[in-house]
């Protein structure tokens, strides 16, 4: 137990931990940028993969962050959850790691796919499904899996990393992107390069169907058995009519229970091309030594075309929508408004609004709903949900204290929104936002993991990691008029989707059902 950290976690919840740091002038931030330019090297390999190496020799360790510019929003129609499923599969190893005999395993895995396709075809028949044949095909499928499993060295990939001192090893799938990361002692840099390039170039979809079961457990845990998870899924499905941001990221149950390894391979082929990947490595490494070695491993990954940009753009909303969930769960209120994507010239204005409404105990929503009106335990407004690459939502939520209702939360939030439209924010509020933005950036520079993530993200989104620092210039230019203008434009009724959970006691055991069909 690390006491300070534990307390920190608790407080982070309570007040939104405004990390300390003072107004560095923009000029001194330029010095930090200059310092980073000396330590940071970007290399785009001939196959299109972007490598960023940042030297930070504070301790003999490094952290890496691989960002694949494809996420749940890229799930094919009918296969929601596939991007996330593939993320799990990226821990199953390669043609060299995790197998006792890859050529034989490859043949066996091909048989699994054929057997599954046969089973699936029977399973999906709307008319004339033959239970006996289905059982028979299921048996063939299970036998094929067992035959393929004989070649598997289970979990060898992650085990190899962990045995070599990898920590914080994980991956995550968001709507916009999929990321892989861990930290290791610096003397394992080459081993890492071997492993990471291997799973990007030659992943093997072994044990796919068992991992599919694991992922369904993840869905049950995060969505089905979690009132807020279930609420968020319904909220997004309602807010979006066309864009995939409205689909379940972990996958609708019917779809995630039916995706197959062939689809996962196709997803990999299309989206895990070098041109779609940025990898940042930060720590005790020298770019001059590391780049040639990294090129040796990542250079041979076969090139492919960068996936074509998505055609779907969410049509403008023209009517307010709402979802009411009546369950034996405690009340909650959530609403959202469509906003443009992160490239919008007003992007920093949204950041300002979110900071002024939500950051710490000086934030308006806290002061109004929590401290003064005493109706909520927590309330925030935040931007870029569920993603920022495509037009996302600016969302607000409030957690009522006992005895108060979602409707009261809505009214109180709307009052705060109206204030943004009808009167200017104060100079002091705007200044605090700008100061905290600079401080927050600076605080993040002393952390290999966080830095690797930031460098990879800014390089992906802007084509230049320096935007991490330059963004502060846009933040500095935000005016009171901008806040009022943007609030008036976006926070309008016809652009709104609301969700409430209204506590409803569980129904008494239904007597009338007794004796009925089960």
């Amino acid at each position: 137990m690390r006491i300070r950290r534990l307390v920190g976690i608790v407080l982070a919840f309570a007040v939104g931990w405004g990390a300390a740091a003072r107004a560095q002038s923009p000029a001194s931030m330029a010095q930090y940028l200059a310092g980073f330019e000396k330590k940071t090297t970007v290399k785009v390999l001939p196959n299109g993969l972007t490598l960023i190496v940042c030297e930070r020799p504070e301790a003999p360790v490094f952290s890496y962050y691989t960002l694949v510019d494809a996420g749940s929003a890229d799930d094919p129609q009918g296969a929601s959850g596939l991007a996330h499923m593939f993320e799990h599969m990226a821990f199953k190893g390669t043609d060299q790691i995790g197998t006792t005999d890859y050529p034989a395993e490859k043949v066996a895995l091909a048989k699994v796919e054929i057997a599954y396709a046969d089973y699936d075809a029977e399973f999906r028949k709307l008319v004339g499904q033959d239970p006996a044949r289905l059982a028979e095909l299921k048996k063939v499928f299970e036998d094929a899996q067992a035959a393929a499993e004989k070649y598997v060295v289970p979990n060898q990939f992650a085990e190899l990393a962990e045995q070599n001192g990898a920590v914080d090893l994980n991956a995550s799938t968001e709507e916009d992107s999929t990321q892989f990361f861990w930290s290791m002692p610096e003397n394992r840099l080459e081993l890492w390069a071997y492993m990471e390039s291997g799973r990007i170039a030659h992943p093997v979809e072994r044990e796919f169907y068992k991992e599919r079961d694991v992922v369904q457990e993840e869905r049950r845990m995060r969505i089905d058995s979690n009132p807020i998870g279930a609420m968020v899924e319904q909220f997004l499905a309602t807010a979006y009519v066309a864009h995939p941001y409205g689909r379940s990221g972990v996958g609708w149950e019917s779809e995630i229970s039916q995706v197959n390894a062939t689809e996962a391979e196709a997803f990999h082929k299309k989206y895990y091309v070098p041109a779609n990947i940025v990898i940042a490595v930060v720590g005790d490494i020298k770019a001059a030594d590391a780049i040639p070695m990294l090129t040796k491993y990542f250079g041979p990954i076969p090139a492919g075309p960068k996936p074509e940009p998505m055609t779907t753009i969410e049509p403008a909303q023209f009517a307010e929508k709402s979802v009411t969930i009546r369950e034996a769960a405690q009340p909650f209120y959530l609403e959202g408004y469509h906003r443009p994507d992160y490239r919008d010239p007003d992007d920093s204005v949204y950041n300002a609004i979110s900071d002024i409404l939500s950051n710490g105990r000086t934030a308006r929503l806290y002061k109004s709903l929590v401290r003064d009106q005493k109706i909520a335990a927590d309330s925030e407004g935040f931007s870029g949900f569920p993603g920022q690459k495509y037009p996302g939502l600016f969302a607000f939520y409030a957690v009522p204290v006992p005895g108060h209702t979602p409707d009261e939360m809505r009214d109180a939030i709307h009052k705060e929104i109206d204030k943004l439209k009808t009167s200017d924010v104060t100079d002091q509020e705007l200044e605090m936002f700008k100061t905290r933005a600079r401080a927050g950036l600076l605080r993040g520079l002393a952390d290999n993991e966080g830095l690797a993530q930031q460098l990879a993200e800014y390089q992906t989104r802007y084509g230049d990691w320096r935007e991490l620092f330059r963004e502060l210039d846009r933040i500095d230019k935000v005016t009171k008029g901008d806040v009022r203008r943007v609030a008036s434009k976006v926070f309008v009724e016809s652009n709104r989707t609301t969700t409430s959970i209204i506590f409803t006691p569980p129904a008494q055991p239904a007597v009338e059902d007794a004796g009925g069909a089960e």
Partner: protein
Amino acid sequence: MNMISTKFTTRFKTRTALAAAACMLVFAMQFAQAQTAPAAKSDASPAQAEPWTAIPIPPLHAFKPQQPKRIELSNGLVLFLQEDHELPFIDGSILIRGGSRDEPAAKTGLVSLYGEAWRTSGTATTSGDALDTELAQKAASIETGGGGATTSVDWGSFKQDFDTVFGEAVDLLLHPAFKPDKLALAQRGMFTSISRRNDEPDSIAGRESAKLVYGKDSPLARQAEYATVAAVTLDDLKAWHDRTVVPNGIIVSVEGDFDSAAMEAKLRKVFEPMSRGEAIPPLKADFPGPPPGVYFADKEDVNQSTVEILGLGTERSNPDYYALSVMNEVFSGGFGSRVVQYVRTKLGLAYDVGGSYGADYDHPGVFRSEVGTKSVTTVAATNAVLEEIGRLKTVPPTPAELRKAKDQVMNSFIFRYDTPEKTLNEQVVLAFYGYPPDFLEKYKDGVERVTSADVSRVANKYIDVSKLAILVVGNKAEIKPPLSSLGKVTDLDITIPPPPGKPAR
């Protein structure tokens, strides 16, 4: 940090019961801090060559973690100073002995309320609200908190603001002004937490497991209720403060861009005049362990069971701690560990599965194994985990398993002290619990010496499956076969007692 997210991950982060209880609203989307390691199958020598074995692993760059400077004042207060000049910040912490385990049972929740109302009330001269603004303008922070064994004041700022911000933090320590509206604010927050504590299965399991292992009235497990929170008064907060804020119960640690000699002088000036008092004594409690059996909490709106298999763990001062740590790695230390290999990878029964023979600094930890599985496989998954627990006794780690478990600990050891802040925190925690400052190095040596026979010995000495309790939070109607196939089932009443004077809902 907000609670809404749509991120999905490969690994699951095991909750810390305390954090979960303290902040039920956080929608946990963080990731795994490893628990879990490798298994039997991979011991078979693969027919395929292992090309990675040819990759050179040069010696690690020389590195000597910088230890903080320790100073003990004549009044018993301990200072730790850790210089770190990478960025122009200075952060500090005042850690005070005494926490929720030392509060009266009838006022459970007192220390949480204290931890919040202390800072929000402010000082005799600066109100909490004024402090909020003052600090926000500097992007600085001062926060107070109440935990299980401690309370604290943490502060952080740009180095040029140190004198001001530290001054306010000290003012808060020496001249707090507990105010009724801020106590009420903190109480509302706790009432909200109480009202929501049955919304998520994890939070139910976290609470109920502590009550099973330590006893429902134990200072380590009892839970705040509407009545105990409502019973806390301003005088209680003041009395708590006066009782605990004594220099011989305080550790102050500072980290950042400063000169140690100058910092020491500043701190001495502030803390030396404090006069000794009676510090909170060490925890005294009985630890009988859980009553064996199956315990069930029904939650009809879930489709997955949260299962915890529970026993009493040990203390870190136990000489068998090293062997138990290796046992934990073999059992559940990573993707390759036995329970992950079997229950998640081989059987596909769970996303979240793991466990460890827990060790705390000053009291026995919890021996906890957990699994989350769909309702219909509740019994199967529970049995699978029990089977792996049993195998720890009957199947000693193979040489390959032992090597992997130890490699994992040794090769990642650097991450226990790769930042000045980690080194500092380690020393603070060791000093707080009276452990020797070289505990970490001893741990490394100890783990290195552990043999397969040691693991087998401790497994047989400490694990008694007949003494374990099984806790299930799930949907009774869906659990088939029923839990009775695991043993005698006791239904847990998780109904939230209504506030005094209000009927149950």
